[in-house]
């Protein structure tokens, strides 16, 4: 049966009594934008290629060459093999990269004006942000999956305790959301692609190298260790190493998890605030 415009208007009439946007409008908006971004993602050879290639590159670069070069691997990584030891760090790095790339989606839609189509639609403004965030999160998780599989192929093994595995995924989620928030803030403030990358540039490699991603904290010079303790990546790696690969946890989950939750809340709050500001005072 064909749906007529009259029926559509009945739907509007149903909503017309509501002065503010409804939950249905929020959920529908988030889903629609997520769907659109994922469709663009599927159609973009570049983006899919980048998504797969980056983690593969990191794994091969660090997993094979460095693992081979470093002597006394067993000293460094007492409880697991070197591949399992470095995989969490590379996983988080790719998630961070995906979050940054996801930010460019928001930036691009803002600077081209595509976002206006969403802003005048009966969709809460929050949905516009959440839609972008959710697609960027999805892309990050796809990359993390590639890393896990590659790690398995290279001999990392995997902790098969389902509860711990899910716990690891949640840690990954919380960590990525924090950076998705920061990326959204940068994308809301930046005037163009260049200034976005300037704003965000400080995050990328230091996050990997100023952490326990490649070396245990106790083997680091004090200065580096202090910096590593200031880096949320350190806590995520600590937790994920234990939860995914059964490594000995250096810091402890009861510290890792609250730190990561705090990081996520701060990142998201920062993202929401900057986005809200950018849509109420355009340009």
């Amino acid at each position, binding site marked *: *049966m*064909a*749906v*007529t*415009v*009259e*029926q*559509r*208007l*009945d*739907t*509007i*009439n149903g*909503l*017309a009594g*509501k*002065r*503010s*946007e409804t939950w*249905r*409008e929020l959920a*529908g*908006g988030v*889903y*629609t934008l997520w*769907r*659109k971004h994922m*469709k*663009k993602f599927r*159609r*973009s050879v570049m983006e899919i290629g980048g998504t797969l290639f980056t983690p593969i590159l990191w794994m091969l670069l660090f997993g094979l060459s460095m693992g081979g070069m470093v002597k006394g691997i067993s000293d460094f990584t007492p409880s697991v093999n070197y591949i399992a030891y470095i995989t969490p760090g590379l996983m988080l790095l790719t998630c961070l990269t995906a979050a940054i790339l996801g930010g460019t989606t928001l930036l691009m839609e803002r600077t*081209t*004006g*595509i976002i*206006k*189509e*969403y*802003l*005048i*639609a*009966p*969709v809460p403004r929050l949905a516009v942000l959440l839609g972008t965030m959710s697609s960027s999160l999805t892309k990050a998780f796809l990359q993390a999956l590639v890393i896990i599989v590659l790690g398995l192929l290279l001999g990392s093994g995997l902790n098969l305790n389902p509860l711990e595995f899910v716990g690891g995924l949640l840690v990954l989620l919380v960590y990525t959301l924090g950076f998705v928030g920061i990326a959204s803030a940068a994308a809301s403030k930046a005037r163009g692609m260049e200034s976005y990358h300037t704003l965000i540039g400080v995050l990328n490699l230091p996050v990997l190298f100023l952490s326990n991603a490649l070396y245990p904290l106790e083997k680091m010079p004090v200065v580096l260790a202090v910096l590593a303790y200031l880096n949320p990546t350190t806590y995520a790696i600590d937790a994920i190493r234990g939860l995914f690969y059964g490594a000995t946890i250096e810091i402890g989950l009861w510290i890792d998890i609250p730190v990561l939750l705090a990081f996520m809340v701060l990142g998201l709050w920062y993202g929401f605030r900057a986005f809200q500001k950018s849509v*109420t*005072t*355009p340009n």
Partner: protein
Amino acid sequence: MTQIAQPSPTAAPSFRRSPAIEVSGLVRTFQAGQKTIRAVDGVDLQVESGSIYALLGPNGAGKTTTISILTTLIPPTSGLARVAGYDVVKDAAQVRRIIGATFQETVVDKNLSGRDALDTHGRLYHLPKALIKSRIEELTRLVELEDAIDRPTKTYSGGMKRRLELARGLMTAPQVLFLDEPTQGLDPQNRDRIWTYIRQLRAEQGLTILLTTHYMEEAEQLADRVGIIDAGRIVQSGTPAELIGALGEDVVTILGDGNTPNFLESLRQQSYVDWASQYVSAAAEVEGTGEIAAATVQIGLREQAGKFLRPIVELAEGAGFKIADFSIKRPSLNDVFLKYTGRRLRD
């Protein structure tokens, strides 16, 4: 001609209140460094339900800013604006449910197809899937994009993107449609197409349309009412005919052959004729035929020419004057604009 399904007047009586758009004392300022720009500086306007209103003004006049406020994109600094009775600030959610818009700049995702663009739009407005499908079919036909609708929009010409955007603005059968410079930068053929669609929409659906333009021809061709906007204020408004009519009378130029003195004499006896004379430069070419007309007669009218054309033709027949060509020149909106702003509208 494509028939667009239209809402029955009884389906939504509350939307049929007129005026469809009410704006009073609207002000919007922007901060540019130390300077405060009054982009919109006290705009008042009313658009009757089912009519087309054109905001005509040069670049920087405040047209886009006015549209941005009315479409809930940005809040006004002060003043009041209502769309279909809903306040654009307090009832923004309700305004959003019933409006459609196209923006000044072309905004379509180049890697997605036209169909994707329309589908996403329908979903943003929570339309049922079956309705989205049938609307896409109807609107694709309306804007004549049947062959291109499944191609990525990066393969579209500028005119095709504009037509797609118009279709997108219409996806949700809006009560009020906002078009910001709908034909800016288009070739005459695409411009004419868009004009045709807009006229068709008004005629078939009684859609209320507020459009902006800096082409006076566009305002003259499409609008029931025109508001001339300059430096954030509406300096004059009215129907195109009123605006132009206020400037003076029409001049009818007739080319032909026969008893010219007799024709002139009978013309001069009419109350609506201000003056009538034979053109001094005698013979003139009848446009398109290459024929040379023996006489050129010019008639200055006291009112607009419209209803007097037939009597003039009858007078010519009665006087034994054979008309070969007929033209009316009236003062243009350009002249109106010149009068009220002291500047010429740049095309």
